[in-house]
């Protein structure tokens, strides 16, 4: 403790208040609704213009791809999966932290999630939307995507139920649906509050429609709370299943470097790791831009950094296990892939990935680092880079040296690959910015429930009854 400066001294034996300064209920309404009611600042428009520019770059690159076909990309046999599937796995993974925060931490009665859950859930939805683009455009002729949906068609054929790619469609669309409902259900009471405080007629109409006429009545809350728990209970195994199924896309094949049983847990841990990296990035931006430092406190960042550290170590364990199993199995092909990864054409990517995902997160052991927002922001960005590279390395290095040396091929991304990559980041952050401007970024009803004195006899228990 002595090494820390006075304002940084934290007594971990006492749970810090979840909301700093214990604002009144009315103040919560005012401050969270503020960004949606005020004409946004110049900072906001500056950020929006950057993200929209990125989005535009992506739209142009995508337009070329759709018109001329995916020959515009660097993909070629045997590297048939590259940036597209890397992006897909990356964005699905980003989404997972949102569900983890909103559902799993809810079930574990971690009340500190309140300040960050809404934004994290929104992030999940936007990330899954970004992810969904990639399998579609990867088809080359996206208008044939319907073929993967089991509906009667003129060929009389059904889908291949044994294929992980079909499971993927089911898993990702279920994930999107459930996350969206979870988010929307959480939004209803807040939308009703917005409806009751707005003075603009148009906004009132929109909020009335969206809040479905919620009345804050206890006979509504009674059922509502149960449903929230049920949805959290369903979303928790769902999030684990989604990335497991995504990992089956690889693990079920026979390619060295993909064909391993460690993939499902490894992918899930990696997803949560990268997701927490992204949540940190997004929340640090939001709390700064909208002055929500007293709601998204340093304690929140501290706790998220701890989860990040934990998942980083799980990922590191998987990084160790992969070469070990390759060596232990005695399969020369597996071992060759391991060596090709670490020393081959893509070795730089591999070592940057190790640095970003394993070495740099070790800094988070220090409390000082965890509570230093600027450093944390940089680390979170590096984690994003590292985890993107992880998927890239898994996909490309396994494919570029396949069983048949005559078909070996070095993959080089083209400007269109990068354009789409930039564009999808633009899309994500544009959506985040629009969200934080139009909807309450923190759940007001939940936040009210965790303020001091919100319940008779200061009876804090996360359950209602």
């Amino acid at each position: 403790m002595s090494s820390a400066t006075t304002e940084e001294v934290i007594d971990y034996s006492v749970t810090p208040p979840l909301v700093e300064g214990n604002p009144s209920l009315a103040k919560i309404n005012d401050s969270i609704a503020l960004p949606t009611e005020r004409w946004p600042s110049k900072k906001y428009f500056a950020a929006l213009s950057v993200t929209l520019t990125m989005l535009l770059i992506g739209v142009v690159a995508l337009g070329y791809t759709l018109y001329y076909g995916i020959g515009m990309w660097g993909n070629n046999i045997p590297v048939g999966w590259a940036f597209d599937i890397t992006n897909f796995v990356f964005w699905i993974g980003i989404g997972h932290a949102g569900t983890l925060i909103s559902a799993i931490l809810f079930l574990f009665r971690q009340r500190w999630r309140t300040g960050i859950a809404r934004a994290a859930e929104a992030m999940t939805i936007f990330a899954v939307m970004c992810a969904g683009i990639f399998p579609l455009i990867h088809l080359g002729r996206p208008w044939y995507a319907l073929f993967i949906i089991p509906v009667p068609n003129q060929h009389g054929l059904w889908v291949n139920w044994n294929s992980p790619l079909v499971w993927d469609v089911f898993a990702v669309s279920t994930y999107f649906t459930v996350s969206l409902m979870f988010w929307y259900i959480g939004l209803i009471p807040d939308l009703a509050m917005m409806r009751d405080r707005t003075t603009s007629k148009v906004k009132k109409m929109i909020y009335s429609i969206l809040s479905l006429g919620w009345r804050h009545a206890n006979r509504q809350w009674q059922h509502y709370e149960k449903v929230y728990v049920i949805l959290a209970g369903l979303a928790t195994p769902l999030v684990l299943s989604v990335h497991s199924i995504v990992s089956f896309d690889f693990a079920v094949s026979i390619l060295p470097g993909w064909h391993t049983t460690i993939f499902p847990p490894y992918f899930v841990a990696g997803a949560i790791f990268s997701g927490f990296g992204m949540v940190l990035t997004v929340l640090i931006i939001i709390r700064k831009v909208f002055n929500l430092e007293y709601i998204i406190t340093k304690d929140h960042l501290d706790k998220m950094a701890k989860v990040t550290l934990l998942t980083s170590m799980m990922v590191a364990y998987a990084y160790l296990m992969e070469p070990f199993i390759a060596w232990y199995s005695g399969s020369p092909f597996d071992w060759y892939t391991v060596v090709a990864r670490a020393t081959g054409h893509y070795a730089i990517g591999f070592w940057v990935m190790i640095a970003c995902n394993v070495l740099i997160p070790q800094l988070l052991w220090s409390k000082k680092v965890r509570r230093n927002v600027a450093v944390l922001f940089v680390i979170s960005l590096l984690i994003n880079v590292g985890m993107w590279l992880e998927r890239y390395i898994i996909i490309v290095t396994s494919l570029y040296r396949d069983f048949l040396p005559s078909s070996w091929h070095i993959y080089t991304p083209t400007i269109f690959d990068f354009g789409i990559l930039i564009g999808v980041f633009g899309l994500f952050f544009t959506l985040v910015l629009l969200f934080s401007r139009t909807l309450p970024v923190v759940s007001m009803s939940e936040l009210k429930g965790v303020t001091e004195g919100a319940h008779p006899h200061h009876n804090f228990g996360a359950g209602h009854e």
Partner: protein
Amino acid sequence: MSEKRLYGLAAIFDTPEKVVAAARAVAGRGFTKYDSYSSYPIHGIDSAMRLKRTRIPFVTLVAGLSGAVLLVLFTWWTNSVDFPLVIGGKPYFAWPDYVPLMFEMTVLFGAVSTVIALLVVWLNLPRNSHPLHDTEFMKKVSKDRFGICIESDDPRFNEIETRRFFEDLGAESVDSIYDEPVDISLRQKVLDPKFIAAIVVVAVVSSATTYLALNKMLLIRPWSSLNAQFKVNPESRSTFYSDRFGMRPPVTGTVARGHLPDPITVSDNIAAAEKYLVNPLLPTPHVMQVGQRDFNTYCSPCHGYFADGNSRLQGQFPSPPSLHTDSLRLAPDGLYYNVITNGFQGVMPSYARQIPRKERWAIVWYIRALQKAQNPNGPEAK
């Protein structure tokens, strides 16, 4: 316009403690049509209001399980019944592969029906016409106050007494909430020219876009690129081959599947064929059955069911002879095979195209059986 009606009395309280105590008192008085209001769920108010546990979890359970069951039935029907397809050497019904999907469908059905049940069945939403909407009461509750509203429909409701009761409980204010039913005549709305115009516009726009999308858009690039591929279609012209045909003739000596030539070319040397061709089949019941089926199908129209020439076509065609003559009974099997394959004397046609080789031999066995049946003691019996 119908008249204002008193919907109920709504009291505002300033702390959660007070509203919980008030809810307990209201329930204790025996009121049933009332509700308490707060912008977040307050602990302990359910038991104060004596509410029963919600039954929504049953919806989740039933819907979730039926999701899994429906998925199994669907995968089974599609891949085992409707279009049986072997994939990766697995059985048609490869259930371990369906486990991930069963799980996903459990979650999907469970979650969607729980949410729909909550909103539509339990909460009766969407409903924006409730009398409490747009009241001062609702605004306060939604901000930082807590409220209880007793409806005038409650048998114990009495405007003056209930108001006093609330005040005794420490209410900050008590408002009367009025119901202003709006007279909506559906007929008028439907016949409103604006409404009709809107419907027409929507119909025209949507059918026009559908038409353009399906009949025009799909014919331009990139949607049409599947049709505009650089490949040689059958019957198309080729600049590559000297004969300018895109379609190439098969290599000389190519034999179509199932059309291997006979070991002895029957038409070349009929005498030898009749002598040396030997029936390769044994007269098993199955062979006899196939022979009977084929004889009845192909031969009986002319030769009759018993090969005696007494047939349905008698008199309309050169009458075929009875196959029970001595010479035919003594003739070798190869003769029959040859007649079926090549026809006979330009009157009986060839059946080589209709009847596969093995079945021709089965017919021969059947004719032999017919001959035996007609003449058990014929010359060939010796």
